[in-house]
């Protein structure tokens, strides 16, 4: 994280073709590239190279990716993006709850990869939105200082829980928050199984903030994992 001019990425992945593709793409887009073929090598390179971002494959030969995430989080705050297959929703949730910042589902495109990398690095560099900051997306403007939400310059009335949910999504904007994380932040840790709260409040929020709640542009559902606020 010491090199802000040219952010460095460490890719921990045992599959050579994916490493090659990532190396080409990331180098081409101004990242300095490091690679590790297994968890052990990955751990030592995080310590030695101090990368600005770690891209971690969940299926490593020598260690479970979720376990590795936990281990990294014990001593490093480096943003971690995990790579997983579509069918591994449970693993994605586990990785996110273990401290990963985001995930990419294989197969993924270049645009998606770069967007996630940017968001993850930006988040690590920036502190969360200040209490008085103003956030906008679509026709929505949120003034945290005044606790005011407007849609097309018309003031919206949000219930306290709707507002808390929106604030949590804004804090993690661009990244997925798991159901468990959201429930814990808003209702407390004893409510982490009550995902229906989220269903109800997300539906209400979409009614208020989305032009077409059935085809949301910003309040995105990640099935089986959680929610994401897309700012752009």
């Amino acid at each position, binding site marked *: 994280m010491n090199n802000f001019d040219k952010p460095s990425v460490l890719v921990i992945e045992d599959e050579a073709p994916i490493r090659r593709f990532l190396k080409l793409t990331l180098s081409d887009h101004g990242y300095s590239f490091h690679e590790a073929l297994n968890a052990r090598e990955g751990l030592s390179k995080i310590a030695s190279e101090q990368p600005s971002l770690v891209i971690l494959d969940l299926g490593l030969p020598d260690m479970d990716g979720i376990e590795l995430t936990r281990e990294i989080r014990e001593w490093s705050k480096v943003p971690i993006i995990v790579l997983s297959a579509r069918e591994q929703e449970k693993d994605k949730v586990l990785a996110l709850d273990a401290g990963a910042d985001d995930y990419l589902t294989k197969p993924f495109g270049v645009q998606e990869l770069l967007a996630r990398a940017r968001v993850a690095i930006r988040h690590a560099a920036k502190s969360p939105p200040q209490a008085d900051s103003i956030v906008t997306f679509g026709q929505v403007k949120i003034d945290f200082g005044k606790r005011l939400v407007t849609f097309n310059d018309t003031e919206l009335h949000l219930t306290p*829980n*709707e507002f808390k949910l929106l604030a949590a999504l804004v804090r993690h904007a661009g990244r997925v928050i798991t159901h468990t994380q959201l429930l814990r932040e808003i209702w407390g840790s004893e409510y982490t199984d009550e995902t*229906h*709260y989220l269903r109800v409040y997300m*539906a209400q929020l979409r009614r208020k903030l989305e032009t*077409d709640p059935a*085809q949301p542009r910003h309040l995105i559902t990640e099935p089986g994992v959680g929610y994401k606020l897309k700012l752009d």
Partner: protein
Amino acid sequence: MGFAIGFLIISVATLLSIFTRQYLDHSNTIMIYLLCIVYIASRFGKGPSILASILSVLAFDFFCIPPHYTLQIAGTQSILTFLIMLFIALLITTLTSQVQDQAQMARMREQRSEALHALSQELSLTRGKTNLLHVAIKHIRNLFDAKVIVYLPDISGTLVACSENSAEIQNAEKSTHANASQVFDTKRAIATVVSTPESGKMTVLESLSLDTAWKPSLKADSLFLPLQGNKETFGVLQVTMNNPARTLTHSDFEFIQTLANQTALCMELASLTEQNQEAQLKIEGEQLRNALLSSVSHDLRTPLATITGASSSLLENKNTLKDTDKEELAQVILEESEHMSQLVRNLLEMTKLESGPTNIKKTWQNVEEIIGSALARVERQLGDRRVQISLDDDLPLLAMDEVLMQNVFLNLLENCIKYTPANTPIEIDAKRHDSQVVIRVMDRGKGIRKGEEDSIFTKFYRSQSNAKQQGFGLGLAICKAIVALHGGKISARSRDGGGSIFSIEFPIDRNPPLTEMTEDKNAPLKQADSALPEAARSARIENRQETGS
């Protein structure tokens, strides 16, 4: 016991006749004795009755016929009287005990036919050979108060003793095992007697299918019977009385044989059914594997060929290709690999679904949200297609697996995109009907061919009208499997005015949990609420309205 009471009754009758001999005729006194004999015969059976008959003749002579207190008989008339009296007494005895025996036989027959009926009934409700045997063992054990062991051949053909009670097997000696083997080989029953002086002596009955083979005197301790079906011998049944004082008679043997035959026939039937099912499954498996192989080889090869061609062309002709051509080739590669990815996803999904419902995780879901996330995944493929969504406002949360149900809509949408012209709209609606929610995905394509409404949901099925389309024909089969896992129903039909309607009926089996309680209007708002008067106040006011509704 019977003898003693018989003696007593005759003594009382004799006393009576001594006191009444001055007043009563001899013939009347005889009647008293005969009455007593009838009673004794009907109560205590043949033995006591014969004793009573002889006793009463002697007593009558001794006490009632002058000269009293001697057995001397005066005159031939008295001899005739005695003989007739004895004859009648014995006749009564025989007839009465015969009636009794018949009644007892009838009772036993009734009990046995009831027992047989009970066994047949339970067998008919039981599936699987092992379970059938367990039922038979249980019934025979309870009927005879006997221990029951079944010997079954293992893979190598060696007989192995099986019983619910392992102690019974351990007690089974080598000799009994030899008996069982012999019965299994010859298919003829054996009865053993262990109570004879040289204990363990065996009486081998040559052919018990013939009644004469069972000597009437034989009281067996153990019976070995073959479990004989029409074609197959399944094993050997050993029945041994728990109480050594009780033995098995010929009628017991016949009854047990009936029970054993009944069991064996049921086992034969079960084994035939099993064989049929296995054969059926094998055929189906074969057909599926063939369909899968031809699908995989065709449908994965086509995109692979395209990708290989396009990428090698990009590499080899990089100097001659125009930029627009390069872009088009790259586009082709991207599209084909996405297509392959979709095929592989469906294959995996089907495999996962077929491995059982263990992977399903139902939570409360919002239909709108699930449709929305499926739409987001096909956004690029949708292109300029219009998607109209109309969902009832009062849709309840439904208990479903988020990821699986998203796949249902994903597959339905991909299906619409694949089989309908690019400029036609897709409509989605959802309505609540009493105890179910009906969600429909509708297009304006060619519709469903008549007669294919059900078959399009079959694995690897491809409509005759779309034979050229790529794909495994798994999408709709996956939809059907997932919806079925949720207790719902999916169907397809042609639509008025052209196109098709896919409709999912989803049961509302439980009431969704309430969420009102989560916003407690009395709880102080956390964080810097007091510093944010306006929004917080409006939030509070609205909150009250919400909880009130």
